[in-house]
């Protein structure tokens, strides 16, 4: 009982110490503020919609009323107003990456359409730009078909569709990408800071010899770790909550139906996991340059493959399996559920559980490493 009280006591005071240290580090404070304001804003604002300002060129060999109509229909915001190019310039423009799409309207196209000869249009797609290639092709096909149909209807009747498909998007009716991008940016920053701050703080204490000093006092490695985790957790929690309320909801005007409290609790739990990973890495690396490299190796997959950038459905099973061992994956899915779908604890509890379990595992691993390496730590 006395032990538990002392643990709480020490953890609390060591954590307070971390706050004082951070308050003295202006560069770090600036970076934290920057990350959760300017960076989140820029990221959300720059992020294009699924099909946004796609560059398209047209080769109009028909020069007819219909071809003009089709070209006029390819408009912003989905497309940059089309540029006219010559047939011989298609390859050069696409090679240089100037155009993602090139639509070639053959000679006598209008005449052939009206005559019911179903002439062929050619659409060249730069398939190396995969995301735009897929959605853009669909858009262009629809637009072209609609225009042709409307044009032909003035001359003769065409068949109507027997069934209509009405699609609606839930939770984000206009499928605004910036909503998603803003939340993704916050999650990425939480991951980055959670890992870097604690891991680097541990290595710094080791490089400056203060950890050895702590260890001759009635303080256990467990308390040292826990104090770093909770204090950095609180800092990042405050920064991310501010960012969500002020920057994302306020400035960016994102509609977030979910519970901020539930998200805050999830963030705290996730920070515990991220910070534990950070401390674990801090016990593996022997100096700051090693830690720097390791953090890139860890952060990159966490940011790219956790489902925050591309859908997890598209990843191979192996990657998906590996990534489900990281807390980030569960936190991303939890955050999407809570923030966008307004899911409650009764829905997201499995993710909560996973984040907590993974966090505890890493905390235990880090604790074990810290205790066993302490004797050999020499600057």
């Amino acid at each position, binding site marked *: 009982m006395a032990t538990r009280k002392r643990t709480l006591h020490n953890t609390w*005071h060591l954590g307070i*110490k971390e706050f004082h240290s951070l308050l*003295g*580090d202006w*560069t*770090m404070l600036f970076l934290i503020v920057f990350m959760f304001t300017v*960076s989140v804003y820029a990221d959300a604002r*720059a*992020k*294009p919609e*699924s099909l*946004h300002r796609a*560059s398209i060129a047209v080769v109009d060999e028909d020069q007819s009323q219909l071809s003009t109509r089709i070209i006029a229909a390819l408009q912003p915001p989905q497309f940059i107003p089309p540029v006219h190019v010559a047939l011989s310039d298609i390859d050069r423009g696409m*090679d*240089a*990456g100037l155009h*993602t799409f090139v639509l070639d309207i053959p000679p006598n196209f209008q005449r052939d*359409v009206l005559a019911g000869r179903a002439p062929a*249009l050619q659409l060249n797609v*730069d*398939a*190396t730009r*995969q995301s735009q290639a*897929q959605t853009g092709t669909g858009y262009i096909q629809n637009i072209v078909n609609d225009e*042709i149909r409307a044009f032909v209807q003035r001359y003769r009747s065409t*068949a109507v569709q027997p*069934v*209509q*498909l009405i699609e609606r*998007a*839930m939770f*984000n009716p206009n*499928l605004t990408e910036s909503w*998603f991008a803003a939340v993704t940016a916050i999650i990425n920053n939480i991951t*980055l800071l959670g890992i*870097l701050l604690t891991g*680097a703080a541990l290595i710094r204490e080791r490089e400056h*010899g203060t950890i050895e000093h702590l260890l*001759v006092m*009635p303080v256990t490695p467990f308390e040292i770790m826990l104090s770093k985790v909770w204090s950095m957790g609180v800092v990042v929690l405050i920064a991310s909550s501010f960012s969500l309320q002020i920057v994302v909801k306020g400035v960016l005007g994102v509609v977030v139906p979910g519970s901020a409290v539930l998200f805050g609790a999830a963030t705290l739990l996730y920070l515990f996991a991220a910070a534990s990973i950070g401390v674990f890495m801090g016990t593996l690396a022997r100096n700051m*340059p090693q*830690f*720097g*490299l390791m*953090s*890139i*190796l860890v952060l990159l997959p966490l940011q790219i*493959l956790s489902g925050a*950038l591309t*859908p997890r*459905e*598209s990843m*191979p099973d192996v*990657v998906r399996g*590996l990534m489900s061992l990281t807390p980030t994956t569960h936190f991303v899915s939890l955050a*999407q559920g809570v923030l966008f*779908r307004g899911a409650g604890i009764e*829905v997201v509890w499995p993710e909560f559980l996973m984040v907590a379990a993974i966090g505890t595992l890493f905390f235990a691993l880090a604790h074990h490493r810290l205790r066993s390496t302490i*004797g*050999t730590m020499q600057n």
Partner: protein
Amino acid sequence: MTSTGGTMRTDPGQDRVAGGNTRPPVVRLAELTHRYGDVLAADGVTLDIPTGRMVGFIGPDGVGKSTWLGLIAGARQIQHGTVEVLGGDMASARHRGAVCPRIAYMPQGLGKNLYPTLSVFENIDFFGRLFGQSRAERDERIADLLASTGLADFADRPANKLSGGMKQKLGLCCALIHDPDLLILDEPTTGVDPLSRRQFWELIGRIRLRRPGMSVLVATAYMEEAEQYDWLVAVDAGRVLATGTPAGLRGQTGTDTLEEAFLALLPPERRGDHEALTIPPLTAGEVVIEARDLQMRFGDFVAVDDVNLQVRRGEIFGFLGSNGCGKSTTMKMLTGLLPPTRGEARLLGEVLDARNIDTRRRVGYMSQAFSLYGELSVRRNLQLHARLFELSQAEGDARIAELARRFDLEPVMDALPDALPLGIRQRLQLAVAVLHRPDVLILDEPTSGVDPVARDHFWALIVDLSRKDGVTIFITTHFMNEAQRCDRISLMHAGRILASDAPAALMAQRGADSLEDAFVGYLAEASGVQLLPPDASAAASDDTAAAPAPHPAPPARAARFSLARLFSFSMREATELRRDPFRLTLALLGTVILMLVMGYGISTDVEDLSYAVLDLDRSTASESYTLNIAGSRYFLEKPPLESHADIDRRMRAGELAMAIEIPPGFGRDLARGARPEIGVWLDGAMPMRAEVARGYVMGVHAQTLTEAVTASTGKRPAALADIAVRYRYNPDMRSLIAMVPAVIPMLLVFIPSMLTALGVVREKELGSILNVYTTPVTKLEFLLGKQLPYIGLSMLNCVLMFVLAITLFDVPFKGSLAAFFLGALIYVTATTGLGLLMSTLTNSQVAAMAGTSIGTLLPAIQFSGMLDPVSSLEGAGAVLGQIYPTTHFLTISRGTFAKALDFGDLGASFLPLLVAIPVLTVASALLLKKQAR
């Protein structure tokens, strides 16, 4: 220091500034003022320093000695006044460039300007290269220096594995490689054991015999060493108190020792209540610390062997020995920090257990380096420790107030420890160590680098604790006058205790006049060193003087830009990288792993989207419609939905990406041609996935209708026009072909920039940046030299990834190899440059790392066209995307991989990359300082 006595050329008649010297002074200071915040390190100093002498700067800590030496060496920027060195103004960069090959500077701190992972030979070799010496010349000089310093046997040992004395000798070798005319040594023997100290001064004496014209400036805390110098400058509070020969200063004040002379020179208010320390006799109690057959092994290396000792309550027990002999390891075992390999350590009769928190309460420990929090104020440091030792608020405050008074910390309670002189910092450490009233105090070199006055003050506190409070004290020191004050001392060498007794008894055993002689005798005997008898040293020096041929004088003016200097930095950086195989492995293997994970992982082919159907019709028509969707490879059907509430619930849970609702009467309406409506609900939480799903479902829908018409009418409905889609460069729309050429540019920005990001800031934190300040190397040579090895490593990474791409990933490469690799070379030059820029911008390694992560991850992933083409971005992101190097190399990579392009087609992408290099490098060079402030 009797051994060097013969080499000194003191002139008792010459008392005042350079009186009898016909040569112009080597250094002239005029009206020199330098301040750090409120502290004046130089207060209108005007001083001429004679040429060809051994000049000592003596005075307490924090009075400005180091600052003066830094200013004279050109390592610090002059604030006010003039500094003339070797006949020119040090404020002029031109003059600094011209004279720095003639100056050598050894900063304070053991091995401060050495490179810890480099070997002895490599360290000296590096400095030789910096001064533009040829291979043959370097080899000859290094052999000569190693032989004369006795380091020849350790040429291959890394600098961080050397003892303190050896580190200082190596520092001296590095300083002497270019035959300087002015040698500046800042406390060179602080923290060095007496034997090594004696050897060090012998070495200096021999070198001065060989180069009689060389001037030597030394700051020192050892008055007995200063006694041997030619000329002294007594310094206090940024001002010159007096100058003259040691004898002159003693004569002037009418004192017997220099230490007393210095105290007499101090103004009365600075002298304080200094008086000779008296130690009351000891009434020893029971055994408090006991070590039995202690042994500590690290792998094969036996750091401590067979240590037996007993210390009684209230005793002051001195622990002496050279650096690296196992003292600190022994102390760690006695505190319980380190469990011994064999034997046992007992505290108050109980075996020490590192896990036992209660024993820690009885021990106060003060480690060699300052180990409190530099970023917390003195008061907060004390408060933190009071809390950790569970003193109540009131109790803690009272204790802190008491200690502040007793340890004279009251005026500095709200200052940051980093800003305080060493002596005060050590008092603070002691205050922290005794805060919880421990029974035992373990102090590891608490007075190293502390000036005599502060040391006496410190010892008064220790004696007080021992005699009044009955605290048992276990202390290590290199100062013999301190060892003399201990009740008993142990001499340790190479992990073993040589002798253990009262100081007087040890002197009697060796038949020595002083404890120092006794100690040196024991050490020399144990290590087999042949010490020169004092009288013979001059003769021996003459021998060495005759041997080597004099070296040609270095060129008067260093070249403006030298490839040799640039390469010397490259070679050093490459060697350091080789010595850190873990980092090298991370850099190479990490790339491979990331490439695999990302190449396979990032994919925009969305498949297996989960969906469910709410079929309110349940007719054959509705079933055949849903069967079509179920047959698509893009969708994965989940159990059917029950109701609208069910849609809400399962969509909210993220279980479904799409829900399809077929209205009641669908089949009937379809048959009647009433155009029934099918509702599709998409999960918009992830817009990109929703868009893809929408595209798929519309396609399936259209196909279903066509098939239905075909089935009912027997012919396909006539289309108005046919849109032939040609997916170019990647006809099968394979994700890998699109992603792999994009992953290479990604990884070539993250890893290379992180490799260089700590390059400069780490040297700033660890101190070796001083070599950039005081050697002829230019900022550009330094930066480019550091960058080169990492460009090489990054290109290796690039080749590795390229091979992986075409073999494992089977991505065809269609374009120009030369264009790809040249592009990669330019690109990694830019990205390593980006890391260096971050490194020069920041002041701590943590900030450099965080800055680099933010500065690369966001722009490269989001704004460089990996997923969304740059042309579709808006705002700040679009601007950044246009200029960010990754954008352009991404175009080159995709162009050469998939589009079969060559230089001609990619010119527009090479140009911005080429521009980025000089922009980044010039920015770094402008931000990098060539002097400290």
